């Protein structure tokens, strides 16, 4: 039998190390590691909006010839994978804990669904009256607004400064993309928002590892 199992740690320094080790271990197990999720969303936006820009460029230009369905199909597939990863990661760990933080997480999760519900319903009503390039801008810019707002709100609720900054970054680049117009918005979203999320994911990954 290990004499340490029930005995006292032999020193102050050892006790403090033990506490820190256990707390870090507990956080790793209970706090979902969303780093991979952010990286997946970043890649989806970088590749998906990148293809949209190349196929439906500013002024209707085709910069790189490819089937018209390919950019949106790619964005859809990569986005669906990211949605699944988000749901799986978000729910894992929360089963082990009950109480206010689970309620908080569930409310936050539902806010995402509600945000996109509004966007879809509004889109169905108003986009039939828009030229095709503005339909694409409507959904892309609307998604950017929902994502950016919920990231910044998430930063406030969970006291994650980096998440708040990511939300602000996505909203700012979204606004700049809208002002630049259809086509350009895809480029701005791919490079600024997509790469921004990948960078944020890498930072989150490093912080989890430390």
């Amino acid at each position, binding site marked *: 039998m290990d004499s340490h199992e029930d005995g006292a740690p032999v020193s102050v320094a050892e006790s403090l190390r033990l*506490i820190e080790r256990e707390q870090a271990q507990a956080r790793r197990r209970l706090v979902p590691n969303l780093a991979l999720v952010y990286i997946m969303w970043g890649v989806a936006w970088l590749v998906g909006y990148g293809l949209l820009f190349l196929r439906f460029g500013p002024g209707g230009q085709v910069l790189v010839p490819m089937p018209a369905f390919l950019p949106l199909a790619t964005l859809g597939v990569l986005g669906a994978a990211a949605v699944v990863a988000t749901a799986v990661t978000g729910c894992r760990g929360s089963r082990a804990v009950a109480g206010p933080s689970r309620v908080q997480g569930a409310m936050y999760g539902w806010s995402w669904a509600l945000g996109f519900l509004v966007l879809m319903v509004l889109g169905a009503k108003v986009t039939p009256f828009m030229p095709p390039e503005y339909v694409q801008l409507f959904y892309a810019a609307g998604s950017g607004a929902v994502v950016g707002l919920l990231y910044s709100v998430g930063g406030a609720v969970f006291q994650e400064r980096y998440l708040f900054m990511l939300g602000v970054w996505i909203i700012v680049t979204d606004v700049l993309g809208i002002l630049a117009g259809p086509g350009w918005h895809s480029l701005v979203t791919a490079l600024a928002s997509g790469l921004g999320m990948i960078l944020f994911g890498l930072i989150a990954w490093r912080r989890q590892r430390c």
Partner: protein
Amino acid sequence: MLNNHKSPRQSRARRSQEPEAQAPQPQEAVSSQPVPSQDVPLAELDPVIHAQARLRVMAVLSTLTVGDKITFPALKDILGMTAGNLSVHLRKLEDADYIGVTKTHQGRTPVTFVALTARGRLAFDDYTASLRLLLDSATSGELTAHRDDKGS
């Protein structure tokens, strides 16, 4: 240079429960100096928490948000302890009113939840604060001793 005050909290904790720690604990080891290293043997700390297994339990529970509770199996997995062993330590912590254990049902499955009580959170914060204080005083004691050596 003497540092032999005792906080009332530490004395109360000592009265309330027999110390279980079997590690050699020279009396007043902390108060006398010079101290040879940072690894000072511990005396006078809350004996309910100051057993490695229960300290680990308290450390894990302390990471939960106030009001949250963790399921028994999840706590067992994080700690890597057997159910029997964990139950024994949880009972001791519950007797000291440091943790609350609630049994409920999720559907048909019975679930046991564990959480720190307000008193337990306070005791754990006090315990870690005492550790830091001891470590600081040991370090400054070491420096003072070093300076004295040079001076003579």
